């Protein structure tokens, strides 16, 4: 378990004081994939680097399995660090060493024999599915392959925790996906606790169990991923979520006056958000039948997060004004988020 208690970190740059982390409190359970999301400069890296003391908190405590890392002596800290792996956006592989030598690097001075090391390196490379590149140099690898090597190297000393500082930010979407899948499988296979920094909600959605949203050095919102997606409280969280779903495109389309948004009198454009866990009722056909209105779905975006549908639909409703109104009330009562975006209904 990782407990971050009242952590503050300030940087002195010239006569300016930058507060990169402010009164941060987080608890991360064993075996969890924990996301930290925020815009550039929010303090995500600083906070994560405080976990392995690459950055020393100005005040506060960082407890890993009950041991306060801020109190350790240098030699003790080095031992503790071996149990906390870290991977980076820029991979940080040693260019002068082969893939195998990079992965063997943390095994130096461990008293392992050459055979044991070779065996361990082989296992690790197989674990990250890159055994065929053992004798290649990093410059001969693609970004995704480099990150796999970096992961193998970070896991060499059998850490319980893996810190990922924007580990997929330099990768294309497909490669990002494959690395996230790998991380998730390592999380399961090795009961590895993963802390993952990102500025993409997509990544959080993909593999995180819980997420903390950071803004100006503070954690402004945190919780399990489904709840955060279903009912974001802070504007910044809503922003992040909107950016991942194409539902927000409707606003642009209307602004641009796109053909699809030109509705006739008696119609309205409505955005439905699925807010409730395990929503399984036949929503669209239901209101259509019950209230005698037409529901024309323009586009939708419903995904499974935590095996629960989450997302929404943008639809054009047409029918009598009071029928539409009644249908919307009915949906609201069912805890569906309803937002009328464009209204051309004829009021009686």
């Amino acid at each position, binding site marked *: 378990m990782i407990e971050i208690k009242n952590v503050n970190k300030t940087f002195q740059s010239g006569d300016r004081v930058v507060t990169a982390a402010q009164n941060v409190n987080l608890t991360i359970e064993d075996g969890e994939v924990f996301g930290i999301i925020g815009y550039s400069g929010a303090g995500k890296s600083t906070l994560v680097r405080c976990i392995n003391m690459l950055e020393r908190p100005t005040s506060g405590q960082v407890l890993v399995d009950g041991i306060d890392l801020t109190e350790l002596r240098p030699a003790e800290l080095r031992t503790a660090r*071996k149990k906390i792996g*870290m991977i980076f956006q820029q991979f940080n592989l040693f260019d*002068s*060493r082969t893939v195998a030598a990079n992965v063997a690097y943390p095994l130096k001075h461990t008293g392992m024999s050459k055979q044991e090391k070779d065996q361990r390196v082989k296992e690790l490379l197989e674990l990250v599915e890159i055994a065929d590149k053992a004798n290649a140099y990093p410059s001969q690898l693609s970004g995704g392959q480099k990150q796999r090597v970096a992961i193998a190297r970070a896991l060499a000393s059998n850490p319980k925790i893996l810190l990922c500082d924007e580990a997929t930010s330099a990768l294309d979407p497909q490669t990002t996906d494959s690395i996230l899948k790998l991380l998730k499988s390592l999380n399961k296979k090795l009961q590895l606790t993963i802390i993952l920094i990102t500025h993409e909600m997509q990544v959080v959605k993909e593999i995180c169990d819980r997420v903390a949203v950071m803004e100006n050095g503070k954690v402004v919102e945190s919780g399990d991923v489904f709840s955060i997606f279903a009912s974001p409280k802070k504007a910044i969280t809503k922003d992040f979520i909107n950016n991942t779903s194409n539902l927000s495109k409707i606003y642009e389309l209307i602004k641009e006056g796109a053909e699809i948004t030109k509705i006739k009198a008696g119609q309205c454009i409505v955005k439905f958000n699925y807010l409730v866990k395990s929503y399984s009722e036949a929503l669209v056909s239901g209101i259509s039948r019950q209230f005698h209105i037409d529901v024309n779905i323009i586009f939708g975006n419903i995904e499974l997060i935590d095996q629960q549908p989450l997302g929404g639909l943008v639809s054009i409703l047409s029918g009598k004004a009071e029928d539409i109104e009644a249908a919307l009330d009915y949906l609201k009562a069912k805890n569906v988020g309803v937002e009328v975006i464009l209204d051309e209904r004829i009021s009686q």
Partner: protein
Amino acid sequence: MNVFLNNYFPNVMTKVPEFYESIGQTFQMVIWSGVISLILGTVIGIVLVITRKGGLVENQIVFQILDKIVNLFRSIPFIILLTGVMPLTRIIMGTAIGVEGAIVPLVFGTVPFFSRQIESALSQVPAGLVEAAESMGNTKLQIITNVYLKESIPQISRAVSITAISLIGLTAMAGVVGAGGLGDFAVRYGHDRNQTDVTLATIIVLVILVSIIQLVGNFVAKKSSH
């Protein structure tokens, strides 16, 4: 062969033993002061990199002092250094003349240059690599040897060859303290007595020497960059 040499290098052929001796003196000076400068320069280069702001063992006082000293010695022309450090040379070597007398000023002339070369070579190691090593629980010494030095072998080997070549240039002036060497040989005969073939012969030897150093340096750099 001999006919050819007698034809084109008449003056050199009359003093072959002295010519060989000069080459030997140049070699002695280059190797001795080279090895000492290599060690001192590497140490100073490392200290400059790790003590500077944001470095592994940041220490502004050490950095500033060392930085200023290096600059100071880099700005003194070698010909002045050669006689200027004579008292110190006498203390260290017991004499201020001959090949022994030349080594101390050559070291003083070379170390600042080489330190800067090493400093710049090590500075090119990305900070991220140092961080990665720290995150893996490396000691500072391990980071210096396994990351800083190991990762910049190509740049270091280029720095060594550039420094060795400039050192050969400096030894040409060592005649001032009676250390002999090829430069002195060329000045005494080639220039003072107008024996152009002597000058030509020393130039040929120096060009070969410099080329070999350059080739070896490039070879090591190439072999170690991936």
